[in-house]
């Protein structure tokens, strides 16, 4: 696994494959980084994602205005020097709202990755490693949940969550309800997305574990007395890391799009907090007279999702050219 079998033609060879690769000893990660940085689309994706991360982190410093500062004397302004993306119907600066909105998208991305790592990976490991009824239980659950379009499930669940959290009775629900309100409705979004985001990774890790656990190195580890937990965390997990990273990267744009979709429908983040989905919904209402209010958020959301996909494609090609994650 440490070097790439150059004799095997990859299904989708990396673009601009170096004709004369430097033949020195490289580890998997160095090798992957080398191939990733030679994939132009992946580099574009990576740069955009890093930029977005910086904007989200420093939104309060970078944004020229606050996201909810209304200026009723300058509503629906076209883009200009003072307002690079113009203003909305309440005179709020669209660029500032987009910048603060990126925080929501990035928060969703981080939580999605956390759920993938903390729920999907362990469940997949357990299902693949122990097999039998545990495997059946976990994988049948995955199959049933995957049978439906995830957004359908998410919408049904968030309808329930919204009502429960709004009610907020009892000690636990009261705290959760106020947390949800404090986060502008993000808590409900996290829970609803969490329900579906771990599914594909759990299935993927299970498949990896099923084939890996028959390999000699696992047998050898057992021979010298490794416990189940040690075999899983020290031998099976590191060897499944590449597909996990790729799957997690592909999961991020899905989660960001789902949040935007929920907020667009009024089921996700609540105004005045500027989720990109809300900005698009507001833009649609004003599109006849002021199309820029729709175009900026819609195009930037689209570019963000495309760049995450570029990065995912690049990582897939870089980490394992034969790997296919969909």
């Amino acid at each position, binding site marked *: 696994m440490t070097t790439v079998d150059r004799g095997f033609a990859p299904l989708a060879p990396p673009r601009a494959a170096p004709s004369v690769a430097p033949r020195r000893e490289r580890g998997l990660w160095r090798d992957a980084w080398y191939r990733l940085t030679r994939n132009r689309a992946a580099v574009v994706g990576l740069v955009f994602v890093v930029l977005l991360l910086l904007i989200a982190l420093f939104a309060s410093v970078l944004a020229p205005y606050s996201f909810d500062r209304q200026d009723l004397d300058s509503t629906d302004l076209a883009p200009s020097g003072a307002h690079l993306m113009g203003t909305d119907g309440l005179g709020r600066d669209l660029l500032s709202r987009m910048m603060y909105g990126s925080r929501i998208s990035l928060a969703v991305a981080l939580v999605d990755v956390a759920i993938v790592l903390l729920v999907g990976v362990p469940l997949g490991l357990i299902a693949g490693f122990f097999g039998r009824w545990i495997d059946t239980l976990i994988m049948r659950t995955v199959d049933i949940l995957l049978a439906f379009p*995830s957004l359908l499930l998410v*919408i*049904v669940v968030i309808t329930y969550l919204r009502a429960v959290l709004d009610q907020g009775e009892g000690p636990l629900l009261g705290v959760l309800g106020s947390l949800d309100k404090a986060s502008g409705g993000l808590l409900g979004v996290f829970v609803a997305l969490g329900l579906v985001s771990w599914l594909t990774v759990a299935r993927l890790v299970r498949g990896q574990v099923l084939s890996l656990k028959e390999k000699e190195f696992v047998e050898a580890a057992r021979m010298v007395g490794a416990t189940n937990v040690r075999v899983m965390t020290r031998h099976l997990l590191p060897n499944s890391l590449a597909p996990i990273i790729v799957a997690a990267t592909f999961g991020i744009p899905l989660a960001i799009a789902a949040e935007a979709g929920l907020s*667009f*429908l009024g*089921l996700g983040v609540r105004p005045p907090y500027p989720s990109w989905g809300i900005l698009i919904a507001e833009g649609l209402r004003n*599109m006849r007279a002021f199309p820029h209010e729709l175009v900026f958020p819609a195009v930037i959301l689209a570019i963000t999702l*495309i760049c995450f996909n570029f990065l995912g494609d690049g990582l897939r090609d870089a980490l394992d050219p034969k790997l296919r994650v969909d």
Partner: protein
Amino acid sequence: MTVYVFRRLLWMVPSLFIVFTLTFLVVHATPGSPWDEREKPLSEAVKANLNKQYHLDDPLPKQYFDYLGNVLHGDLGPSYRSVERSVSEIIAATLPVSVQLGVASLLFAIVVGVPLGALAAVKHNTWIDYTASLVTVTGIATPAFVRVSLLIVVLSLGLALLPTGGWEGIFDVRAIIPILAIGSGPAAILARYTRSSLLEVLGQDYIRTAHAKGVRPNAVVAAHAMKNALIPVVTVAGVTLGNVITGAFFVERIYGVPGIGRQFIDSVTGRDYTLLLGTVMVFALLIMVVNLLTDISYGYLDPRIRYR
């Protein structure tokens, strides 16, 4: 084969039953009632009367079995929001619109997606391939509500070619933007799968044999390679249907198409729980039927697969 189909059809009954029960429980566990969130708050007496009229004051098991009995007779109950139409009538009125839109979108997806993927595979690693993959990534990455928004901006507002919304049947110009918006997602999925599948087939020995015996290159792709390459593509039918359904949620609402996707979204935002339950059941049935059809067609396309 007949036994297989029959058994799959039988399995749909418990599956639908589980979907029904789970959705029923979620809907009834949801606090608040359909009578909340009106402009004028209703008095307690009126709410109690409404609850009585809709049997919402019965014990939950009784509600469940009464409702189940009605559903088995094809009666999905009254809509809480719409006084004049029952849930069954709403679905009967809106489902055909969505089915027409969905079928047209899928046709668009097949007509555009498969040739695009095939072209990208044949012109592998050329600018055509790269352009096609950019188009494909765009279609896969962007959600339907972004695609429909941008289509409206460009085609309706910018170029003033098409109206900004409305529905006058599938053969009206108003259907173009919804079809493009919904269909571009599955088109991208099909293109991606066709490309990778065809690339794999083109590397096989019998393709080289065909080239060697002097078959024209286009004929090799069309007659020899495509047939085998399309088998794996059929397996994504379920994924594309899911894409069409979730696309319809947004596109129908934004473009003002009176379809079932919009009813689903309206039922969620309006807490019309019976309509929510009814639409979810329709989607579940639709997905199961398409998955079955996919598996059956798979057996016909690939003689190596036998169902027992």
